[in-house]
């Protein structure tokens, strides 16, 4: 069991702390490779079945659905480690491996209890990637992130307990929305999957992480959530509509967002929407689409985060308003970024094309026409914020005058490998299709499909050109845009003083009274429980004998009762 | 308790000297007659010890300690327990259950006889030693 992929990561992350500096980065590269070998070596089936407390815990379930996620997680961990070769911060290194291991553990968990443990582990390990930025603001952001993640875990725990109480089983198979317990689990998954109105943590936290941390963060948590949804709630119709909303609304926010890493976070949210729609449809084709899209998404989203991260690494900013014209001195980063942008926009011959179309096809085949149309619109939107905005405002547009050096060697290698994979999957979809959960008969490269996609994208591009020429395209401004998280970040805190003031004004006396009571209670408790207090001390022989008499009396009384 | 070891208790001393052997013999009698009649290790031990206690009352602690040093007592205490437990172990070694005296001799009757004898001896030795050391303990501490 120690050789299973999650534990390999955990062991490696523990070992990191004890080996010299120069061996750490290589170890981080080797671990994902070993883990991948382990996943393939174990083969499909339930491994590591433990019987604890009469529960059957399945620590390592490899099947058609979890296998592709395991593979892509290993790849993502490898690429992120390569990208982070320069990092000398032990905390981040340990967190990276631990986080990847926890996410793998979640994906391979065959029961809800194991899932819960890994679920919380992802939260706890990943937050260090945000803390590692080291500023007080990052600490605050990390705490917000952690609270929401842990809340998700708590909901999962509550849900699984209720589910266990209802059914007597903790197996993690199809759950469906059938009871309060499964609803709670659904919400827990939804939080990590950034459902609308539960999404804020994503956009809040990812831009606050370190350069390399964001790359790591982007790969795991949300995709683990997509996996759990696909496992537990495939075919739940509500997900189709949730997913449709998810694809649409982040686009608008992404469009006007200045921080490019937050743009990418919104775009990540939008891409998750596609996957959630796939899960909601729940047919074999749709699930294939979800898995395929998660697979290719991890790659191109990592690539985009890497390129923006490289820019940040060299220039100190990732704000669109501060950047521009960097193609001169960072051409390789630029090319990689453009490849990532084309992949996410689903240009033919790129990975997004062959995965997203599965979901779109499933939507129209199952008569979700409105949703299908939303997805088409969203595809145009993806082009707007990720396909054009990211590379254009970073590397072209107006010249910011910045002349940073090209990204470091290891970053370039990481980006080139990732870019290659994006193209490779797009050109040879068979490789990806062969590891999908179900048999794939879909042919992405039909003439009409290529044609319609090209029409969509080219006309969208045309619209972009037109809007730029007319000057209607929003300028990049140093602004933040409030999202629904305003409610708990500003709204409630701003109302609170007012409410509190009125409460105080109205109830000063009663509050004081209550506080005094509480304080007195505290003092009383402390007095009784303190080492010299009566609860703790004073159990002399006399008191004890007294207690004996009382107890004896009580027992006799209770015993005689029925006789009398 | 105060120990008087003075000349003016000559009468007591003489009588004690006379009494002690009889007490001891009576103790032994109770001990060894225990398996047929009233008696046994506990009673015998106490009677046996009372001889020493009497001696100690009259002649003082020092002299009694010379007769029966505490180190010997400790040894005797353990020995008694060992005799008792050893009998049990012996029966086990001989193939019976714990304290199954039947196996100690050729026929069960003799076996029972020997077994009780040994066990009671152990009890007697221990009780004697414990009683005397209790006496020492109380007498020496004020």
């Amino acid at each position, binding site marked *: 069991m120690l050789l299973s992929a999650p534990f390999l990561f955990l062991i490696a992350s523990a070992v990191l702390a004890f080996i010299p500096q120069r061996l750490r980065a290589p170890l981080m590269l080797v671990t994902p490779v070993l883990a991948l070998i382990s996943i393939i070596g174990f083969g499909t089936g339930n491994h590591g079945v433990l019987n604890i407390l009469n529960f059957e815990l399945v620590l390592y379930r490899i099947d058609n659905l979890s296998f592709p996620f395991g593979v892509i997680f290993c790849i993502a961990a490898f690429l992120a480690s390569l990208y982070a070769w320069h990092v000398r911060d032990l905390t981040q290194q340990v967190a990276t491996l631990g986080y990847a291991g926890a996410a793998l553990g979640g994906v391979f968990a065959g029961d809800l209890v194991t899932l819960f443990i890994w679920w919380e582990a992802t939260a706890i390990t990943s937050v260090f990637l945000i803390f590692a930025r080291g500023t007080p603001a990052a600490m605050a952001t990390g705490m917000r992130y952690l609270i929401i993640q842990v809340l998700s875990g708590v909901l999962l725990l509550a849900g699984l307990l209720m589910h266990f109480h209802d059914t007597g089983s903790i197996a993690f198979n199809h759950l469906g929305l059938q009871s309060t317990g499964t609803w709670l689990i659904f919400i827990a998954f939804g939080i990590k999957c950034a459902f609308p109105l539960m999404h804020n943590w994503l956009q809040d936290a990812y831009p606050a992480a370190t350069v390399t941390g964001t790359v790591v963060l982007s790969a795991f948590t949300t995709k683990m959530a997509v996996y759990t949804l696909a496992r537990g709630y495939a075919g739940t119709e509500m997900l189709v509509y949730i997913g449709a909303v998810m694809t649409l609304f982040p686009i608008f926010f992404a469009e006007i967002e200045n921080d490019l890493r937050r743009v990418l976070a919104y775009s990540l949210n939008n891409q998750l929407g596609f996957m959630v729609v796939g899960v909601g449809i729940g047919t074999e084709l749709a699930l294939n689409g979800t898995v395929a899209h998660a697979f290719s998404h991890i790659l191109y989203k990592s690539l985009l985060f890497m390129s923006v991260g490289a820019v940040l690494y060299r220039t100190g900013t990732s704000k669109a308003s501060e950047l521009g014209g960097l193609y001169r001195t960072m051409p390789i980063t630029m090319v990689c970024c453009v490849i990532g942008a084309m992949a996410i926009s689903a240009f033919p011959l790129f990975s997004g094309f062959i995965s997203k179309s599965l979901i779109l096809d499933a939507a129209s085949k199952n008569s979700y026409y409105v949703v299908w149309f939303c997805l088409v619109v969203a595809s145009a939107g993806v082009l707007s914020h990720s396909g054009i905005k990211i590379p254009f405002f970073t590397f072209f547009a107006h010249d910011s005058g910045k002349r940073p050096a090209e990204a470091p060697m290891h970053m370039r290698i990481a980006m080139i490998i990732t870019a290659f994979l994006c193209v490779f999957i797009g050109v040879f979809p068979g490789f990806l299709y062969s590891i999908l959960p179900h048999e794939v008969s879909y042919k992405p490269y039909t003439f009409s499909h290529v044609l319609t996609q090209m029409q969509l994208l080219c006309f969208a591009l045309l619209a972009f050109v037109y809007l730029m020429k007319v000057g209607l395209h929003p300028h990049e401004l140093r602004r933040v845009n409030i999202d629904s998280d305003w409610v708990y970040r500003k709204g409630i805190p701003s109302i609170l003083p007012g409410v509190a003031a009125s409460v105080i004004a109205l109830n000063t006396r009663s509050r004081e009274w209550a506080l005094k009571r509480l304080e007195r209670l505290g003092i009383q408790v402390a007095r009784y429980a303190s080492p010299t207090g009566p609860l703790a001390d004073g159990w002399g022989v006399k*008191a004890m004998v007294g207690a004996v008499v009382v*107890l004896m009396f009580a027992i006799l009384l209770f015993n005689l009762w029925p006789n009398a | 308790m105060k120990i008087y070891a003075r000349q003016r208790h000559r009468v007591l001393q003489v009588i004690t000297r006379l009494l002690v052997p009889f007490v001891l013999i009576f103790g032994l009698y109770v001990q060894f007659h225990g398996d047929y009649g009233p008696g046994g290790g506990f009673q015998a031990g106490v009677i046996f010890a009372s001889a020493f206690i009497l001696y100690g009352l009259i002649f003082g602690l020092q002299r009694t300690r010379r007769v029966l040093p505490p180190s010997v007592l400790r040894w005797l205490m353990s020995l008694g327990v060992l005799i008792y437990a050893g009998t049990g172990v012996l029966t086990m070694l001989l193939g019976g259950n714990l304290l199954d005296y039947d196996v100690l001799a050729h026929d069960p009757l003799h076996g029972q006889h020997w077994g009780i004898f040994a066990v009671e001896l152990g009890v007697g030795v221990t009780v004697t030693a414990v009683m005397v050391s209790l006496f020492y303990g109380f007498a020496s501490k004020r």
Partner: protein
Amino acid sequence: MMDQLPALQVMLPMVAAPLIVIIRHPFWSWLIATLISVCACWVSWLMLQQVVDGSIIRYAIGGWEAPTGIEFYVDRANAGVALLVSGLSSVVLVYAYHSIKRTVDTSKHYLFYAGWLLCLTGLIGMVITGDAFNVFVFLEISSLSTYMLIAFGSDRQALVASFRYLVMGSVGASFILIGIGFLYAATGTLNMVDLAARIPDTESPRAVLVAFSFLTVGLMIKAAVFPLHGWLLNAYHHAPIAVTAFLAGTATKVSLYILVRMFFSIFGDEYSFGYLLLNWVLLPSAIAAFVTMSLVAIYQTDLRRMLAYSSVAQIGYILAGISLATQQGLTAAVVHMFNHGMVKATLFMAVGCVLYRAGHAHIPSLERMMSRMPFTTTAFILSGLGLIGVPLTVGFVSKFTLINALMEKGWWPAVVMILASSVMATAYIGRVVYLMLFREARESSASGEGYQEVPLLMLVPMYALLALGLYFGLFGSQTLGIASGAAESLLGGYQ
């Protein structure tokens, strides 16, 4: 020889104790005690193997068959408890060598180890005997030697503590004796199996009732059930730490075992709980135990005392499981006896290590223990997690089973109370852990020399026990399986 195991179990330490007194050599007496204890442990392991399938060993002492003679009665339940007792004794004895050398005068070592073996004899005897009066005899053997062991504590308070325990223990023992006497008067037998058979048709139910009440209260004193726990605190606090570790793991558990045996096997759960409403006494005192004692533990300043209070609280959990009188509740109780025995012994051993180097166990002075005694601190923290009941530890296994059992019966308030007391346990363990790990040493104590780690002979047994605890935490189904079998044996009464 295999059929002589029950007798061997008792005779080994009993023969060795006087031998040690004769030998009188500190080292050799330690070695003999340890070896004998290990042998006893091995014997009880073999015994458990014989009965784990549900069979029963009945060993007639002196060849006199049951109702007439005294017998040892071994089934799954008490073989397990015997293994716990002898196993903990062995581990703690290995550990005790250095620790005792520090606290007890060398010239008295032989007495200490002889007393230890006698205590072991008594405890094991209580567990495996099938005769009610014999229970009392062995109880006295173990109690008397325990008083002695406690009095070996290094400070003068130890004598007082020992004396207080002696008074309370004697009250308890006499209650038990009176109870047994009434039982004998009512039924004319002392053999437990026979008692169980005769009690239902006895002509004097009042006498049985009184016997039941006396036995219950007497055993509750010996088991330190909540309002009767007063002796335990000082005893655990002032006894030599090895003794505390041993007693905390075994003595109260054995009494609880006798209590369970009595409730379920002799009187039968119908009688104890269905008819006599005992859970109106047991459950309230259990809940009061784990709520108030956990609360009190938070405020303690001495580590030993804190753990002593926590012990009383944990006994409350076991009692709560017993008072459920269901298969699952009893399983929880039995498994918690084991788990808590292991965890608490480990914790006290860790405290002993601290005492060994620091000379005190004053909680506020334990800052930065991690940097001074990393291994000890790690052991303390890990087993502390087990005490709290963090998932994947033994504490979780038993607490979870208990909560499940309570929920099955629908006793939600009790569940809430358990959760509340778990929070308190987190508070009192967490406070110590926080101090040990994080707080910067104050100037005054920082100026003192850093401690070193304790000798290997102390670390190894501690870690062995810790590893065992972790193992059973991960693979809880093994202990649960045995405990469930034990519960079955107990609930089923005598065949």
